């Protein structure tokens, strides 16, 4: 089978488009056929392994309907014992890699997810599809080529994103900035800095990174905080010309320098929560509208934007997709133990909000698994791009987690611990996520019984959060802003709220109305 490298070399662009992006031509019925067919394969694989037998229960499952009727929804707790002990023999297929991520609010600090050979192949294809799309201006068009320079700003192995350069090696010849070998010896932050310097020197064609990091890099560049004092010698005439123009702009015309003066990315792929918030900034700084992809460690790639960059389209063959409608989510919150019902992609409706439930295909371990992401359906087709599949936008993590810029996930437990350890005598508090103009914050509302100084409270809580949660610390260090906002509410407010509503205010992400009433 020809690799992407071969097809690019032979200039078979139409064939590449068909192979990687042919799914954009599917109708919803064809899409569902692929989903159903691959789910039946997965059911067969699950039946033959111990983990699968446990999850499927004793029921006879032969059809997609049987599967949805009899198999309960799961969370990582259902897999922790098998996966954290890396019990390969209990899985539907032999893992090639064990991919790691942090487990917020879990029993263990990390989560592991197995990736079989077949899953790795599909995931590679999916990632390539997004990369190709990031350089595309319309159906069938793209400018991605062999030997493109790739500024790679994602977390290293054993995180999922770290595997991509190693897997892509077999598919296509990219020049990574820095090279994978060099990158292995550098920390995440150092790699970004070194990569950026190399990009100034050589030019860069592709970028893949967390949106917030890209904005931070761009801003530092504009403010001159990261531009190194050392002289960067351009390695090709094109880059030399760009540097001369940039110098002219900055020194002679005295205009502020933006990254787009030095770079001409063919495509930028960004991921992470809040990507939507950062998109316009990235475009302003880098001159290229980023293409958002949506996925995670357990799910791998789930959906990608297309060339109009307006709405995510799902990949048909990576996960079996189910959606919990908003009213079912509410009912679950109200009734302990309630099993929410799901709908399929063919049943989602524009304007509605859904929590995503995935079943990994191709021998993956996760079955009806709640990854904790909430999406909004924005249409049943993308008319601009002529895609006849439902389009969604990523909204946020499920309501019981505060996710900041894709960096950290603050749970009730973490917030509670930080407040307790700050030793300020605070017993009543609630915290929620708040969107600023171009960044996101965590807003804590507290009662202050010991009458501490406002600044002290903020600093102490901030300090404790940084101690407990290294990812939170990274928001401070990497993105260079302090995401904590604090509001003190009058003493007794929480008790009054409880009296009035016969219920405590939610500790995490209470509704705006509840917050309003708390402060009233």
């Amino acid at each position, binding site marked *: *089978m*020809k690799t992407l490298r*071969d097809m690019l*070399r*032979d*200039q078979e662009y139409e*064939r590449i488009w*068909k*192979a990687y992006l*042919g*799914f954009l*031509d*599917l109708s919803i019925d*064809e899409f569902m*056929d*692929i989903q159903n*067919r*691959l789910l039946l*394969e997965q059911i067969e694989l699950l039946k033959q392994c111990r983990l699968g037998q446990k999850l499927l229960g*004793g*029921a*006879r499952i032969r059809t997609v309907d049987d599967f949805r009727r009899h198999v309960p929804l799961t969370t990582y707790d259902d897999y922790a014992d098998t996966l954290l002990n890396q019990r390969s023999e209990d899985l539907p297929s032999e893992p090639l890699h064990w991919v790691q991520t942090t487990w917020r609010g879990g029993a263990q600090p990390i989560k592991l997810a197995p990736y079989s050979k*077949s899953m790795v192949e599909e995931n590679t294809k999916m990632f390539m599809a997004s990369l190709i799309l990031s350089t595309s201006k319309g159906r069938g068009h793209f400018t991605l080529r*062999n030997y493109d320079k790739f500024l790679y700003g994602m977390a290293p192995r054993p995180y999922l994103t770290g595997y991509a350069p190693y897997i892509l090696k077999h598919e296509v*010849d990219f020049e990574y900035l820095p090279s994978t070998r060099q990158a292995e010896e550098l920390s995440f932050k150092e790699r970004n800095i070194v990569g950026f310097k190399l990009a100034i020197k050589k030019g860069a064609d592709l970028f893949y990174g967390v949106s917030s990091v890209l904005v931070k890099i761009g801003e530092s560049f504009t403010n001159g905080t990261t531009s190194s004092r050392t002289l960067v010698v351009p390695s090709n005439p094109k880059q030399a010309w760009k540097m001369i123009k940039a110098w002219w702009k900055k020194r002679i015309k005295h205009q502020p320098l933006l990254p787009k003066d030095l770079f001409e990315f063919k495509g930028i792929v960004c991921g992470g929560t809040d990507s939507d918030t950062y998109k316009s900034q990235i475009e302003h700084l880098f001159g290229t509208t980023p293409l958002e992809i949506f996925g995670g460690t357990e799910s791998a790639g789930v959906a990608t934007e297309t060339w109009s960059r307006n709405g995510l389209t799902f990949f*048909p*063959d990576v996960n079996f997709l189910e959606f919990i409608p908003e009213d079912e989510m509410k009912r679950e919150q109200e009734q302990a133990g309630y099993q929410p019902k799901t709908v399929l992609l063919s049943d989602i409706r524009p304007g509605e909000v859904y929590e995503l439930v995935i079943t990994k295909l*191709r*021998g993956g371990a996760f079955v009806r698994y709640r990854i904790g992401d909430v999406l909004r359906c924005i249409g049943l087709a993308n008319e601009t791009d002529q895609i006849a599949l439902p389009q969604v936008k990523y909204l946020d993590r499920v309501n019981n987690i505060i996710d900041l810029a894709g960096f950290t996930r603050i749970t009730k437990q973490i917030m509670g611990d930080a407040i307790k350890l700050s030793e300020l005598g605070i017993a009543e508090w609630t915290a929620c996520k708040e969107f600023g103009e171009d960044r996101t914050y965590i807003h804590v509302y507290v009662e202050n019984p010991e009458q501490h100084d406002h600044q002290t409270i903020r600093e102490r809580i901030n300090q404790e959060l940084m101690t407990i949660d290294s990812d939170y610390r990274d928001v401070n260090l990497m993105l260079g802003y302090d995401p904590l906002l604090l509001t003190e509410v009058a003493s007794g407010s929480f008790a009054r709220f409880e009296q009035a509503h016969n219920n405590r205010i939610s500790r995490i992400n209470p509704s705006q109305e509840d917050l309003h009433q708390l402060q009233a």
Partner: protein
Amino acid sequence: MIVLTQYNIIPLIAFALYSIILVIILTSNRTRLSRAFSFYVVAMMIWSIGSFLMKTDVPPSTLFWNKILQIGFVSVPVLLLRFSYVLTDDYDRRGIVRFGYVVFVVMMVFTFTNNFVRDASYVNGVFEYELGIGAYLFAVIGSGYSIAALAIMIKKTYDREVAVRKVGLVIIGLSLVVIGGALNLSPTIGQYGIDILFNAFNALLITYSIYRNKFLEINLVVKRGLSVTVYNILMFAIYAAVIISSFTIIRYRFGITDMTTTVLIMAPLFFLIEPLRIIVQRFTQHVFYRRTADRQIVLKQFSDLINSSLELDHITTSLASAVQDALSAKEVNILLKNTNRYYLQSSSTPRDQSDDLHFSLHHPIISWFDKGNNLLLKTQIDNHVMFKGLWDREKEQIRALNTEIIAPIRYNERLIGFVIISERNDETPYSLEETEFLQTIINNAAAIIENAKTIEMIQKQSITDELTKFYNHRHFQETANQWIQEQRYRRFGLAIIDIDQFKIYNDLYGHASGDLALKRISEIIAGATTDNEMLVRYGGEEFVVLYPHLKPEEVFVKADQIRIAVEREFLLSDDIREFLTVSVGIANYDVNGNTLEELITKADQAVMEGKQSGRNKTVMYRENSEHKNVDAGVQDKIRDAFVSSIYALAATIDAKDHYTYGHSNNVALLSEALARKAGFGDDKIEVVRNAGLLHDIGKVGIPESVLSKPGFLSQEEYEIMKSHVTQSINIIKHIPNLIDTVPIVISHHERYDGKGYPRGIKGENIPVLGRVICIADAFDAMTTDRPYRKGLSLEQAIFELKKNAGSQFDPMLVDLFIELAQSGELNLLQLENRPSFNGA
């Protein structure tokens, strides 16, 4: 005037050859390879035509034509290097290639400023030139490029990245180019244009290599033109050689100078040449059309063969081997459609039996053909979105078959199968002509395959049972008798598999469900047996399996596997409505009997023994078995023991709520009385009495809070309450001797108008004893005291029964019940805990 000399003849011939090559390339399909090669050929054409004209007196000047020559000469090495990269599937836009273009531009500057060749002259047929600095510089760079092109080929071959067969001739050709280039440094040899000659050889070798390895799809028209040209050139050479040599011999050896005599002597020679002409013609045809001719022969032979055969196996095997021969494929497999899948019908290479090769009807490849598509290529399977739903196992299957092309077999535009063709023996790609041949041969075969399939199906239908696809009774009799007569096997086992309580199942769920159950059981049997065993639908609910070769104990183990599988699928399944089991009786040939009748009788006796000892048993026939005739008394005792347990259980349910205490017993007595009044026989009366006792046994699983809740139940609670019926069945189905109560118990909440539960059946569809118990149950409930109301009086209860006759109750049975009540017969019953009624 242009005069041909020994100096310019070589460039002219080379130019002619390159022109032919260019025509071939330009009329072939456009690929990266053809593009790279055509640039090289054009450069060579410029070089050779420049060289030719330079060595003539054609104006403007020798130096001018020399400059034209340089354009070709200087560009050849870099284009050769590029071609070399492309041929070895390597990346060709490298710095070194780009640098070569720069060198070309620089050398052109040298050329047109007379720094490449300072002067060139052609005087009196002698060509002389004086080299400049550019020429020496280029000699180094140019030969470097040529050597690099050669080195890439050699290295790739050495590393086994490229097959020697593919590039061997190209390597020889390139070596010639390098040698030719080196010879040029000597003006004495250089003046003859040896380098051009070597380059021409190189081009010929490359052309042949491309043709042989099918790098390019050579157009048929060009091929025909080419074959004529080659034929003409060869004939011209032969005639010229014959005429010149014979003329020389006649003239100089024999001294004959008279033209007429010479012609007369030479004339017969032309007749002698005729056989030679035929040989040359055959040779060119062989070279250019050999495969086409072979394929036509194959097609003809195949057509003759299939027209004389009606046997499916023979036809498909012939098709597979014809396709394999004609296309030189490694492997050809033919799959045909049956009712539920595409199965492997024939294979050109023997396949492992255990390798169960089949494609489901929903296979993406089938969908592809169903959409009217024709040939399917491996690259399409790899890349087309329609194949995203392929299972890993299916991908592996396609890979294991070395699949290169899949061709549909269609009859009347309906897909009846497909042919999977592997890659070719020499791993070169298939040509368009070959795929056309493939479609022709398949189209020829389609109707005949369909015909043969129909005949085979009719033959098969006459010996198989339609529902289960097992052999029918008649075929079994014939085959088994034949086995015995011919003493085909030294031993074999015969197992009769009889479905327990199948009549009840049929009555309860209808014949359609009964057939479905039969089918499922037949699938279970098929799943628990191998191809060696013979499977038979012996009677309505009876199957027979013949186990050749196996010892009695092995037969027992295998037959018991069937029983266990049926039990698991039905009785132990989560679906509480399923209660079927099978009883299996086994007799062994040569152990228990030597005739088929004997074996069947004994296996039947074993089945009976299994049924009598509680069903769901596998029993091997044994002479003088102690269990052979299970005493009817023991049977009764077993059943009594069961029934006592049930009484106890029923009493427990009633006791959960003291208001309903005695309810089950009362329903049993009332139902018995009504059934007797309706004229049912004793056996039915016993069944309905048991059903009455058991009808609410499922309430054991209903939470106390729902069961004893005063007042109305919520919708959710009502749903829970309703589930007691199905739960009752779930309990009863495990008690072998009470299974005949199932249809009654499951219907006691059905309503005559169809608004009842759990099945919502109506009227006569409700088993009649179910309708009986429904009245008894309602009557007892009405007359029971409740915490919030007193029980109804007999009159009130009768009024209610009348009111609901025809809607809730069977009106005829209601009338009979009212007669019972009004005649005072009910008062004689030993009803418990019914003060309101008993007092009436």
